């Protein structure tokens, strides 16, 4: 298993590099002279040239990228054009909030979506199953930001139960998690349900039943592990989508996370910060893909065996 993780970790490096390259390239083409933003009315040809030299902006694209990556490896995301403070500090202050929201949504999405999906997959013709199917269909179609607003309208404005903004208590995490997670919860639920339906029809389930395994163990010991594979894939794919959605959630609920920092920085034309936000989110997606792969390997003996550590 250890070998597997190490191998995947190494495989991640070129991907992260490539993503950084893509984002860096896009941001490189941002029109306009950044020294305009930084220097404001102190701008002059010489000052601009001097600053460009200082920031390394006078170098070739490849060299700039090389320097960026070099700094990145040392945990240095560069300096914000606007505040002149290290981008890394801002990310450090903001990113935990994003993680909390994503984690909250994740817990909601897995904790609610998977059990419901399993149950309605095992009993596909029950009323419960039908209702959850419809709820799932509606759920995947709900725009995060609209749901967020409706939740605020209902739970903060009308009922006054939960806070509508910020992220400073457990209560304030509930609505953002719901808003961000519902979409993906529905997705996870639908996937779990259909893979459960698929698995429950498999011959080996019949074999298990023919052995006299009781209904509960048929589901838990035989069906679940097999049914979870597509679900885990979907969950893994959703982490990326969750990180995209977090931009909206943070905007709706005024949460000071990376997503809002990204939007603010775009509005400020603060390229280093924009870049930093995008890179850290991409790294996050890459890491979560890795985690999914590991879980996958843990569940599926075929993959586990490939890396020898299966029995150990």
């Amino acid at each position, binding site marked *: 298993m250890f070998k597997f993780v190490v191998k995947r970790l190494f495989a991640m490096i070129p*991907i*992260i590099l*490539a*993503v950084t390259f*893509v*984002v860096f390239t*896009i*941001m490189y*083409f*941002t*029109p306009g002279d950044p020294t305009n933003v930084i220097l404001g009315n102190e701008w002059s040809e010489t000052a601009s040239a001097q600053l460009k030299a200082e920031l390394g902006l006078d170098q070739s694209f490849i060299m700039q990228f090389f320097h960026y990556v070099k700094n990145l490896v040392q945990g240095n995301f560069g300096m914000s054009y606007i505040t002149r403070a290290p981008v890394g500090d801002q990310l450090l202050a903001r990113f935990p909030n994003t993680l909390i929201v994503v984690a909250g949504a994740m817990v909601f999405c897995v904790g609610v979506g998977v059990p419901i999906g399993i149950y309605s997959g095992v009993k596909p013709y029950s009323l419960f199953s039908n209702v959850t199917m419809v709820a799932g*269909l*509606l759920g*995947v*179609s*709900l*725009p*995060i*930001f*609209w749901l967020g*607003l*409706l939740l*605020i*309208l209902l739970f903060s*404005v009308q009922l006054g139960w939960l806070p509508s903004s910020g992220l400073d208590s457990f209560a304030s995490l509930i609505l953002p998690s719901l808003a961000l997670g519902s979409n993906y919860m529905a997705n996870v639920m639908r996937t779990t349900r259909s893979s459960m339906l698929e698995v429950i029809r498999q011959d080996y389930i019949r074999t298990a039943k023919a052995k006299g395994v009781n209904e509960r163990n048929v589901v838990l010991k035989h069906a679940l592990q097999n049914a979870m594979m597509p679900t885990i894939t979907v969950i893994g794919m959703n982490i*990326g*989508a969750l*990180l*995209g*959605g977090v*931009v*909206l959630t943070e*905007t709706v609920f005024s949460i000071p996370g990376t997503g809002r920092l*990204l*939007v603010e920085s*775009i*509005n400020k034309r603060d390229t280093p910060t*924009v870049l930093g936000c*995008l890179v850290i*989110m*991409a790294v996050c*997606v*890459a890491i979560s*893909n890795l985690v999914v792969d590991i879980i996958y390997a843990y569940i599926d003996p075929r993959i586990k065996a490939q890396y020898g550590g299966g029995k150990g």
Partner: protein
Amino acid sequence: MDETVKKYTTRKEFFKQYKKKSRLQETWNRFLRNKTAVLGLFIFVFIMVVAAAAPLIANYDDEAIKINVPARLKGPSAEHIFDTDEMGRDILARIVHGAQISLVVGFSAVALALFIGGAFGAIAGYYGGKTDEIIMRCMDVFLCLPDVLLALAIVAAFGTNLVNMTVAIGLSFTPKFSRVVRSAVMTVRGIEYVEAARAIGSTNAHIITNHVLINCFGPIVVQVTLYVASAILTISALSFIGLGIQAPIPEWGNMLASGRAYMRDHAYIVVAPGLAIFVTILSLNLLGDGLRDALDPRLK
């Protein structure tokens, strides 16, 4: 083989025998039996008709754009059944005209993604091997960036306007389409009529366009339907955070953003545009699911 070919006057006719004539008909019948899918189709057609007929329903300049401050936030009435917004414009009129923007951008973005992603995917899937490996690794890199973020990055770099946004969304969907087309191509690649075409010496390009892509049509239609929904969602999401379609053009996301300050007392201002997004996405999802089930009955 030669003898077999002789029996048919043209190559086209030769291939015809491999395709079940009634496949389309059969699929359509299966689709019609799926009531939820038909509901989705019905709603979506309705939305398209409404979008197309928007000028007949409400005058763009007079009702969706023209600001009428004394009429602002007066509450729902017979004249303005969904209330008026913070500028005194009829919310319904703006929603109806907003549908046009959403659909146009949604379809163009997906068309772009399909064109670029499809080309890459088809090449990767058809040639396989190294080509496939290289193209798909590149696409994987893009998949590491959630599409909203990729779109945001592009919009951030090149500015917010309709074209940039369409391109941004289109590009952010490209890797997904390349995957869809690739796997579709890979499944049909091994099928006999393609082999047959290869055997009688068709060029690769000809095979890709005339045989492989035509037969990938089914899964692609499904994906197009679902991604148009995604595209519409992304447009309104970008507009909602102020990096999409700009005022005064009515778009559902920017209606939500500008109206939210008033939602405490005037719920329609956020409920109505959001409902429009929701119903559109829902109809496309129902339609997409239905099409998928109809095209591949095993996946029911």
